[in-house]
């Protein structure tokens, strides 16, 4: 509002009472929806019996048992065998001895987590790399059937993943790509590239063409102008796009559960099958879930200014 108006706030500025009511409702909603996330975090530090206590315990004596169970496999042993063992070497040893168990070895969680990292970063690098090139071409050059090609790229997203998985399963079996990281990287790249092209085209459209034109007058070739003028200008957009691709690949479940079983399995299909003695080991599941979600929470906060654009394929820009 221009200065000089007599009123303290403009006619369209809501009254303090309205603001108060709005803040109470919104904060109330936020707190309620955060409960499941807080519960995941807290459950990770409970003992198995505290986790399934009734009434539910909000705070229990904190223990790292859930994290130990997440990272190790254990076997139950007879008391006389236990008595002969040397003293426990570390915290997880001590905790499992208390339950008449011995740590048998590492669990599959870390390999699965590493698979998730490799596949997510690999497919992100590929889709952003290829996507930047294609987006630049779509943004700057006359391409026959441009709109149709762009729509075609987007429409590949409309297939239900299970439908895509049927022929991919057959194709990968023929090519020897079943349950390989390379196969999953290529698959996630093909899904992410539509997002990458659409988002990046929007970001590159916003860079004035005159920058490149001027660079080319100064003797740059088109390619040099692309690398030395456009790419630096598009860095923010490229990083935001990369984080979106990363989050998608990190979260993906349908392809992973259908097409991987061992060496290329990612964390999402693995976490639900963490079981202890007599059913699911909820503290271990919660611990695995917490470690899996933390990177996304960090990225979401970093990305908050670009979220809107990312989730609408660039259709809505602020």
């Amino acid at each position, binding site marked *: 509002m221009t200065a000089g108006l007599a009123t303290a706030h*403009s*006619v*369209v500025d809501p009254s303090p009472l*309205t*603001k*108060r009511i709005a*803040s109470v409702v*919104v904060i109330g*909603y936020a707190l309620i*929806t955060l*409960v499941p*996330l807080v*519960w*995941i975090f807290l459950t990770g530090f409970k003992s198995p019996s505290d*986790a*399934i206590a009734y009434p*539910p315990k909000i705070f229990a004596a904190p223990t790292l048992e859930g994290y130990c169970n997440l990272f190790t496999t254990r076997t139950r042993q007879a008391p006389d065998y236990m008595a002969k063992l040397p003293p426990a070497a570390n915290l997880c040893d001590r905790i499992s001895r208390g339950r008449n168990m011995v740590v048998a070895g590492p669990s599959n969680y870390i390999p699965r987590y590493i698979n998730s990292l490799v596949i997510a970063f690999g497919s992100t690098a590929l889709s952003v790399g*290829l*996507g930047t*090139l*294609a987006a630049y*071409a779509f943004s700057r*050059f006359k*391409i026959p059937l441009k709109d149709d090609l762009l729509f075609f790229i987007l*429409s590949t*997203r409309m297939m*239900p*993943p*299970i*439908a895509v998985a*049927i*022929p991919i*399963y057959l194709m990968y079996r023929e090519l020897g790509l079943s349950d390989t990281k390379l196969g999953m990287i290529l*698959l996630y790249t093909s899904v992410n590239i539509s997002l990458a092209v659409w988002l990046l085209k929007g970001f590159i459209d916003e*860079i*004035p063409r*005159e*920058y490149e*034109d*001027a660079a*080319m*007058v100064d003797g740059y*070739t088109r*390619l040099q102008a692309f690398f030395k003028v456009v790419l630096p200008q598009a860095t923010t957009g490229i990083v935001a796009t990369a984080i979106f691709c990363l989050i998608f690949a990190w*979260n993906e*479940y349908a392809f992973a559960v*259908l097409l991987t079983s061992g060496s290329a399995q990612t964390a999402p299909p693995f*976490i*639900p099958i963490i079981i202890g003695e007599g059913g*699911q080991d909820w503290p271990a*599941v919660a611990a695995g*879930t917490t470690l899996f*979600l933390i990177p996304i929470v960090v990225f*979401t*906060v970093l990305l*908050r200014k670009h*979220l809107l654009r990312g*989730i609408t394929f660039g*259709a*809505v820009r602020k």
Partner: protein
Amino acid sequence: MTEQTGLSLIDRAALVTPPSLARRVHGLSERAIAWVFITPTMLLLLAINIFPLIWTIWLSFTNYRANRPNAPVLNVGLSNYQSILTDPDVWAAMTVTARFVFWTMLIQTVLGFTLAWLIDKKFRGHGLWTTLILLPMMLSPAVVGNFWTFLYQPQIGLFNYVVAAMTGVPPSSFQMLAQVPLAPWAIVIVDSWMWTPYVMLICLAGLRSIPDYIYEAAEVDRASPWRQFWSITLPMALPFIMLAVLFRGIENFKMFDMVNLLTGGGPGSTTEVASITLKREAFEKWRTGYSSAFAIILFVTVFGLANIYVKALNRVKSR
């Protein structure tokens, strides 16, 4: 994005160079660069999207079974399509999917728009709370959905406990995931918990796109707040609401992760959405030809509905 301050030499040159002159400056021919840049993306999509799609179409006319690769493959014509369209189980799955899409869209639109409208009142700290509200939608539906099975446990689950504390019903008297009338709602609740923020964020953009002067003019005309809401706020935010529903509708039509982990389609087949039926046919019963035909039908349905919807959206936008 673009810096306003500190114009470099290139920036300043940019302001004075006519584009026509600039474009004549050579290098590798423009057309060559365009094709070199686009071809890798297109090849990848052809290899991993289009070729499999064509393969699926071919399979849908056969009796092929992926678990018997050496059995003779017979061309069965349209009989797969025929049996799908007359299969009551398939129609049941489509009905479950449609009802699921309807209720999630309704709840998320009402809730999401209300939240956006309240956040747009710009109370103190609204930025922080908006970010916090957005968190669930970025998380993995599978991993978080899996944890919800714990919250839904009778006896020990937090959800049952809270409902019991508020209504006085014993917490072990109902099982969200195992009772026929409750299981669909269990999924609707988790889906809405995750995706209401999505609708909210897009609605918020819509509300912020309405210029202040329209409200100022309405204020001058002494239009009541009620009237302002119905004649300005809602109509002007409508294209955004519809866009959110489009994106979420497509996603929820394809819905798989959460249902697979929460109920697996059960109890019975009360929550068996189309993707779950498709998974059963393709990867449990291994009726590859039959499920390929089903996949094609689903794809055509999503594609067709989305196209009709986009036409409606464009009509609203151009009003």
